Structure formats: structure tokens, C-alpha cells
């Protein structure tokens, strides 16, 4: 059970939720608790491995997506929102 009010999540609790956290299918409070935990537990091998395993599965699911093309004008819309032309720089964003 994850307690509210920012109660510290243990590594075991995180490992139990890592798959659902990676999938972004937890309720908001649990999703945020997991995000806080992985930020704090950056050096915890168990937590990072659990998350990496889930992300590896998601990588493979991404590769299973059937694909379809966007509208011909979509790239031009992106360029327009960037306010740039081909060969320009994104330095102002960085």
C-alpha cells in the first residue's frame, strides 16, 4: 500500500510498481510517488533494473506498432512551430 502525503516509498514497493509506472497506468498519486522514488534512488540497482526491464518490454511493444504515414503537410507544420527553416539552429532552445 502506498500512503499519501509523500510517504517515502521503499525500493521493494517501487519494484512492485515499476512495470505499471513505466507504462504510465498508475493513478496520479502512485505515479508521482514512483517518480519521486526513482529520482532519489538513482543508485539503487534493484530499482533501476526493474525500470529498465519494463522499458525494454515497451521498446519491443513499440516495434510491434503497425505504422501509417502522417499527412504531407505535417513536417511543414513542425518547421513552422520551430520558427526555423532547414539548416537553422535550435540554439535558442538550449
Amino acid at each position, binding site marked *: 500500500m502506498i500512503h499519501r502525503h509523500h510517504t517515502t516509498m521503499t525500493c521493494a514497493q517501487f519494484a512492485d510498481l515499476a512495470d505499471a509506472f513505466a507504462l504510465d497506468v498508475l493513478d496520479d498519486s502512485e505515479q508521482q510517488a514512483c517518480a519521486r522514488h526513482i529520482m532519489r534512488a538513482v543508485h539503487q540497482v534493484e530499482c533501476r533494473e526493474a525500470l529498465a526491464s519494463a522499458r525494454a*518490454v515497451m521498446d519491443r511493444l513499440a516495434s510491434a506498432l503497425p*505504422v501509417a504515414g502522417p499527412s504531407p503537410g505535417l513536417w511543414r507544420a*513542425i518547421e513552422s512551430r520551430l520558427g526555423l527553416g532547414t539548416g537553422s539552429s535550435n540554439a535558442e532552445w538550449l
Partner: protein
Amino acid sequence: MSAPLPLTISAPNIEGCLTKFVAVVPTGPSDRARDRELLARVARGDVAALRALYDQHASRAITIAFRILRNREEAEDVVQETFLEVWRRSAQFDPGRGGAVAWVVTIARSRAIDRLRARTIAGKTIASASEDADGLLPTPPPSPAVETERRRDERRVAAALGALPAAQRRAIELAYFEGLSQSEIAAKTASPLGTVKMRVKLAMAKLADLLGDEST
């Protein structure tokens, strides 16, 4: 009006869609290295490199966005946001956490889920935004070698999904491909929330086992 795109991914559906849509999708180590180079160039402000990434990966981004939102216009908005985010955050890309295609798809999926949940909060029903797939255009055929590898990769994933018990597969389909939260899945499938959580967990563990040796 033509028949809608299948919104539930199952092994047969994946194979069916593969007969309709093709795309150039990098899968091998050299492709990953090329993507890393492209992202490095994007971080230095090279719009042509961003365009190259767009040409490679926009098709998958729009597919996941459309599956979640079921609306072409919103899905294309999500793709715009996705590549603007790639432009801004390319320097933060961590190749140790997966390839560029996974990163792009993850961004698109997250943005689509944000929109889906905002739409739900606004009181709109998912069904009201439904749209057929006419706006999703087939992409040009890739080289035979790339297409062969892509199809092999997709068959592996389809087989792994097909190996899951039906209830677990459905939970993953709703979670990953349609962007529903576990609570929403529980409501949609009339299952207890705890059961849904267990199905997602067991499905992910089995997929990790089945696909783990192939994930690099």
C-alpha cells in the same frame, strides 16, 4: 465510410495491419548508431537531422497517438509536440534506456495519454472522438532488407503477445496501445482493480522473459 482501423492489438490484428502499412524502421545496431548520431546533430541545431528522424519515426508516433486518441487531427498535433520535444531535449537522450524509436514513441504516447485524460476530465467521451482510419496514409515501401527485419521483429512481438493468457493480453493492449490507466481498465473490463494490476504485472514479466534476450 470505410471500416475503422483495429483499435485492439492482438497477434492476428498486428499481422493484418502489416499487410496494409509498411515503413522504414531501424532495428539493428547500425541503425541505432545512426539514430544516436542524428540526435547528436539535432542537439547541435541541425534541422535536417531532425527531419531525418521524423522521416524514420513519425509513422510510429502517429500510429500510437491515433490508437490512443482515435482522432487524426489530434494525433498529428501530438506528433508535432513530439518532434518539438525531440528538438528541445535531444541532448538529454540516453541511449542506455533504449533506441530513438522507443524514445519518440514514448514521448508521443505520453503526450497522447495527457490529451486523453484531459479530454476525460473535460467530460468528453472517448467514443465521441472516434474516427475511421482514412486519414492515416500508407507509407512508402522500405528496402527489402529493412522490411524483412522489421517484419521479423514484429512477428516476434506478436508471438509473445499471443502467448499471453487472453485477460493479460487484453490488459496490456488497453494499457500500452490505448493508454488507459489501470483504474480505467478495471472499469472497462468490469474487473477488480487488484486483478487488473496483477494481470499487467504478470503480462509484463512474461513479455520480459519472452523478449528479454532480443531487446538489445
